[in-house]
């Protein structure tokens, strides 16, 4: 039997037998549920203390030794420690956001996320929030250990501005991660290769271990598309006595640009996700590697 028109709706429905939230409640439930494995996972897999704190600290120590050897100003030690702490966020965005949907596809979770009535943006947001909370712990650990080891002197000009810059940086950075995750939705192992490719150049371009003012203006300006570039510069200006003198742009301008990046990346993530999901469904790439 073939219907000439769509068949009648089925009654009763699942929502009649079992209460299920929808709308913003479902969105919120999804965000919390997807953030949960990241936060809880950190408590259960303690190896992060070595890989995500001790190893980055090794790089930080190496740069501190170089700066001390060449007689760089004392604040450079603080710059390096702050940069080292922020690398944890970059690593998290790169490996646990951008290429995450590839791993989810391999594991079989992506198909289940798609067929559920939740929004994929809520899934991405949950991944971002969970990653942010977990990584903040790592960043704090690196900052505390580094500061204690090298007796770093902070002179915070404005805690409110410092906190605002950090929040803007996280929003823009994880917005960028969500955008990448959407772009990588169609990719197979290429996602892994692209993440590998992006890792090291960003250490350089974002000025993790030195003030970007050392770059020619247009190089620094182009690097500002990476949210960590301006946020690190602004936080250094706000946290260290000589920070303002070594800053690239004024803190207020950098905050304004970061706010713009937040909007751009989040909107782009939303649009790309919708487009890529449709494309992946059309091409049959949601559940299997590229044919």
């Amino acid at each position, binding site marked *: 039997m073939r219907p000439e028109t769509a068949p009648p709706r089925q009654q009763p429905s699942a929502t009649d037998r079992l209460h299920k939230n929808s709308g913003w409640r479902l969105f919120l439930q999804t965000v919390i549920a997807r953030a949960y494995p990241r936060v809880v996972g950190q408590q259960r897999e303690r190896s992060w203390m070595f890989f995500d704190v001790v190893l980055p600290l090794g790089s930080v120590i190496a740069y501190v030794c170089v700066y001390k050897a060449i007689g760089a100003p004392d604040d450079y030690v603080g710059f390096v420690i702050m940069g080292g702490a922020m690398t944890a966020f970059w690593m998290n965005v790169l490996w646990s956001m951008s290429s995450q949907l590839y791993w989810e596809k391999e*594991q079989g979770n992506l198909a289940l996320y798609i067929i559920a009535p939740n929004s994929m943006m809520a899934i991405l947001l949950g991944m971002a929030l969970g990653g942010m909370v977990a990584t903040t712990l790592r960043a704090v650990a690196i900052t505390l250990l580094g500061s204690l080891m090298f007796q770093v002197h902070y002179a915070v000009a404005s805690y409110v501005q410092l906190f605002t810059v950090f929040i803007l940086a996280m929003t823009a950075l994880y917005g960028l991660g969500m955008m990448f995750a959407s772009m990588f939705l169609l990719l197979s192992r290429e996602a892994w290769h692209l993440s590998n490719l992006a890792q090291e150049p960003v250490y350089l371009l974002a000025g993790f271990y030195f003030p970007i003012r050392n770059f020619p203006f247009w190089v620094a300006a182009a690097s500002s598309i990476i949210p960590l570039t301006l946020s690190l510069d602004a936080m250094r200006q706000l946290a260290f006595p000589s920070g303002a003198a070594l800053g690239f742009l004024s803190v207020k301008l950098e905050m304004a640009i970061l706010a713009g990046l937040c909007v751009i990346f989040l909107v782009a993530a939303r649009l790309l996700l919708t487009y890529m999901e449709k494309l992946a469904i059309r091409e049959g790439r949601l559940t299997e590697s*590229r044919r």
Partner: protein
Amino acid sequence: MNFAIQTRDLGRVYKIRGGKKNEPKELAALSNVNLAVHQGELFGLLGPNGAGKTTLIKVLTTLLAPTSGQAWVAGFDVAKEPHKVRPRINMVSGGEASGYGLLTVRENLWMFAQFYGIPSTEANRRIKQLLEVVGLADRLNTKSSDLSTGLRQKMNIVRGFLTDPDVLFLDEPTLGLDVGASREVRRFIRQWIDADRSRTLLLTTHYMVEAEELCDRVAIVNQGRVLACDTPANLRHHLQQDALFRLETTPLNGLKVGAFRVLPGVRQVTHRPQDGFAVLELILEEDAALAGVVSTMTAANISIINLQKREPTLEDVFVDLVGQSMEEVESHEA
């Protein structure tokens, strides 16, 4: 009549890279599939690996767009209204490794329940209840990475039933499970559908026993096409007038099964070489046709070890429709 699932001339063509001169090659995974599954039905898709069963499930669960035709689930078009279909469905695949190994069974199930908007208290109550039904209650707080394949699959099954969907898709749900675990899973599936006939279940399998034991109706699928669709009893009934024999013989010594197929009264023959002997399954138009088969064997110096006349099974229906056993189809595909 309420149909939970309906398809009209449904087709899906994959473009595969690596054809001649690197041009994309086309592979029709589904061709003109017309199905109507009633609300409250436990419907089976039976076919060998690569028949198109999983592709059909992907289309019906909104994971894959059809390239031709239409499909409705719970009355909604899967391609045009996926957001209306999704709250009403769920899916479990055999051998899937979904969830996160660091989370416990309860946490994994709770997480998936949240994606459907089930309030936490209710989700936790249902998780406990369903884990008891499948005999997994004592593993509530075990990390899912510590579960055996069978127990993990039970957890996946619970995940599918947890959201109490209108239409549940089970893709080879007992794949990789031992006999006991498979039986338990089948019993649970049957109980679930019998408890409330407003639910519908579509199950794919390449196990004949599963289809015979569980399904109200079965569609036999091969090479992306539906070859037959009816109750298991009616499908078998078509072969009632035929004579079915199972012969164990000495090895065929190079004699091809084609030599039997050309004999008068022989409809289908399948051959399974075993260790030191051969098994022939014959579908004959009448008992008398067996004489010709025996003569051919005698001439080729093949001895009959055991001969058994038997009732038709769904495997015989498949052989009758396709001309090969599922095993043979799968080995050719491989």
